[in-house]
């Protein structure tokens, strides 16, 4: 029997390219302290900690949560470490939610982080695994061909990616925690930026960030004791498929479609674009906004770019996407998924500040990872189901 669960508090760091002012422990503690304070709690009130992070090679520490146990207040408590590639932040939120939904714990801290400046993620990703296609030149080199396939398939005009970048970077300037603060960015500037992986230009790719994000998830009695509004978790979903297999659709992956179908079913949503007020979607390269709009069912296949072009994904549009600035404005890789989940919660709690979508009551948090193969999502709302 599944228990109700809600986000009681949210915390994140100021994301930057190099947080040389803090250690890895200091970075994580900054987000954890803010999350428990937001929930009106202290770390002593937390029953269990779930830590998420992308590959350990990104910092050069094996299972760093072992060393972080003290900083996270986890000593003497259960601590789980999740790693599901880029989707890990979302998976961290979902695993923490399941601990409450299962009735195992009452208040769980989910924390996800990355300190990219400790190492070089692009080359940590440029690996040559046995019997698999090597990922050359980092994630951009992997995803660019799939973006080109999308453009060819959909007939999208070439400026759509740049439109996404302008919107997300301007949104990021409304979010004091965002790494990139580019309120004056223009379409012309994006289109004049250097081409990195055709068709992805410099201004259309995510930055490398140091950062952490934490959320406190609690059961219904804990939510009743929370000092402020909470975000009720209406549905959670995860799906995986292999990187490569005969018939894999890299543009519109089956794992993403299955994941969101299960999500909408659980949340009782039949008309996503009209029932979801705001979506925080994992868009590390600009073109993934229209691609995921289609994969998530906000638009028919081949039609997602029309929503972007019409400005419907901006704050005030039909389906605002990434009012926080998204992954294009901050990318502490392991934390990026939990940031999407946390920002969706902030929206339905009405705590989005300058990037608040007015009247947001139901929101989607989305993350993906690996070769478009690991998906994690949740739906949060201002009221319980």
């Amino acid at each position: 029997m599944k228990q109700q669960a809600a986000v009681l508090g949210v915390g994140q760091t100021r994301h930057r390219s190099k947080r040389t002012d803090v250690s890895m422990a200091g970075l994580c503690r900054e987000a954890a302290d803010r999350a428990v304070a937001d929930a009106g709690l202290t770390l002593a009130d937390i029953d269990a900690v779930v830590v998420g992070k992308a590959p350990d090679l990104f910092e050069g520490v094996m299972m760093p949560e072992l060393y972080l146990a003290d900083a996270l207040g986890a000593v003497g408590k259960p601590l789980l470490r999740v790693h599901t590639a880029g989707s890990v932040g979302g998976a961290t939120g979902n695993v923490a939610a399941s601990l409450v939904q299962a009735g195992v714990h009452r208040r769980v801290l989910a924390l996800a982080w990355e300190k990219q400046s400790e190492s070089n993620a692009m080359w940590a990703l440029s690996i040559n695994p046995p019997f698999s296609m090597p990922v050359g030149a980092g994630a951009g080199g992997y995803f660019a061909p799939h973006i080109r396939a999308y453009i060819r398939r959909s007939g999208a005009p070439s400026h759509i990616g740049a439109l996404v970048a302008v919107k997300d970077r301007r949104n990021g300037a409304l979010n004091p925690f965002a790494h990139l603060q580019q309120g004056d960015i223009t379409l012309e500037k994006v289109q004049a930026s250097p081409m990195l992986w055709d068709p992805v230009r410099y201004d259309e790719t995510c930055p490398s960030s140091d950062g952490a994000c934490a959320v406190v998830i609690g059961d219904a009695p804990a939510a009743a004791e929370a000092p402020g509004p909470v975000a009720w978790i209406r549905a959670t979903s995860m799906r995986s498929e292999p990187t490569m297999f005969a018939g894999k659709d890299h543009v519109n992956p089956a794992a993403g479609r299955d994941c969101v179908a299960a999500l909408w079913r659980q949340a009782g949503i039949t008309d996503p674009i009209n029932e979801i007020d705001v979506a925080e979607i994992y868009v590390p390269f600009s073109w993934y906004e229209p691609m995921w709009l289609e994969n998530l069912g906000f638009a028919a296949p081949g039609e997602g770019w029309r929503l972007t072009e019409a400005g419907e994904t901006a704050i005030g549009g039909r389906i605002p996407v990434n009012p926080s600035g998204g992954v294009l404005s901050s990318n502490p890789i392991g934390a990026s998924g939990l940031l999407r989940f946390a920002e969706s919660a902030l929206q339905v709690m009405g705590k989005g500040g300058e990037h608040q979508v007015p009247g947001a009551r139901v929101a989607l948090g989305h993350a993906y990872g690996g070769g478009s193969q690991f998906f994690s999502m949740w739906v949060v709302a201002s009221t319980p189901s």
Partner: protein
Amino acid sequence: MSEVAVVGFAQSPVAVRDDATTSGVEMLVPTIAEAFGACGITKSDIGFWCSGSSDYLAGRAFSFVSAVDAIGAVPPTMESHVEMDGAWALYEAWVKVLTGDADIALAYGFGKSSGAELRRVLALQLDPYLVAPLWPDSVSVAALQARLGLEAGRWTEKDMAEVAARSRAAAAGNPAAQVSGSVTAAELLDRPYVAEPLRAHDCAPVGDGAAVVIIASAARARELCERPAWITGFAHRIDSGSLGARDLLSVPSAAGASSAASADVGSVDVAELHAPFTHQEILLREAMGLGGDVAISPSGGALCGNPMFAAGLARIGLAARAVMSGRAGRALGHATSGPALQQNLVCVLSGASS
């Protein structure tokens, strides 16, 4: 809380496997097939999958990604991964079944410990600023712990050798064991030190392997297994990451996990302990309050086969097998992680549902 039981277990033989890649696929495919066969199910029956493995062991990022090939995730599956021993993957799977999102779940763990010099790789689990740069390897850290116990009069080198001799004799009946055989403590004590006061027999051998455990809700368990091993308690805890801040002769995380898993751990018939060093078995028995009438690690334990990231899950699988076969009424499976028993998990299983 609703009831969940272990209904299936399989493990690969533990060995240095030149034919196995770091993605684990070669070890996992036959092991998963064996577990399916015993339960009479196929991959489409599994509602949730969860794995445990380590990128650092594999020496590359995303080592678990190609392991998904071993489960044949087409069409897509509900799946997750922990950067921990597979025992914690089983914990996540157990939680998933409790939520009602899945009726049958499969946890697997895999590790190719022989891919590099394991004791040096594990040094990178320590504080990255102040300790890891000194490269105190995992055997040396365990040796410090063993030395403290010797000086405190908690055990002798002979006590440690006796743990090894008993384990090796027990492993003679375990086809998955990497080390086994008849040897006396006196013979072992004649052998040289590896890291004083530890000799080779005090340390788990370096080996590669995989383990698979299948669990099911009460509604499905009895149709998959004649005598399911009901999970009556499942808990884990972590201690400080700072070696200097810990009393290395007490294991509060093991004591805490075992008392959270069962008020009466001392009455189990069998305890499969994940003790990679002989003195750690003694420490764990004391921390959990396991008396002389509990059969400790009848498989030979981790001292006879310790495939990293699979060995803890295998302990739970072996404890469950003792219950499923009727050899034990109640059994305990234990897993550890981190330097000098920093993190511990306990799963208590029973032939009788509560």
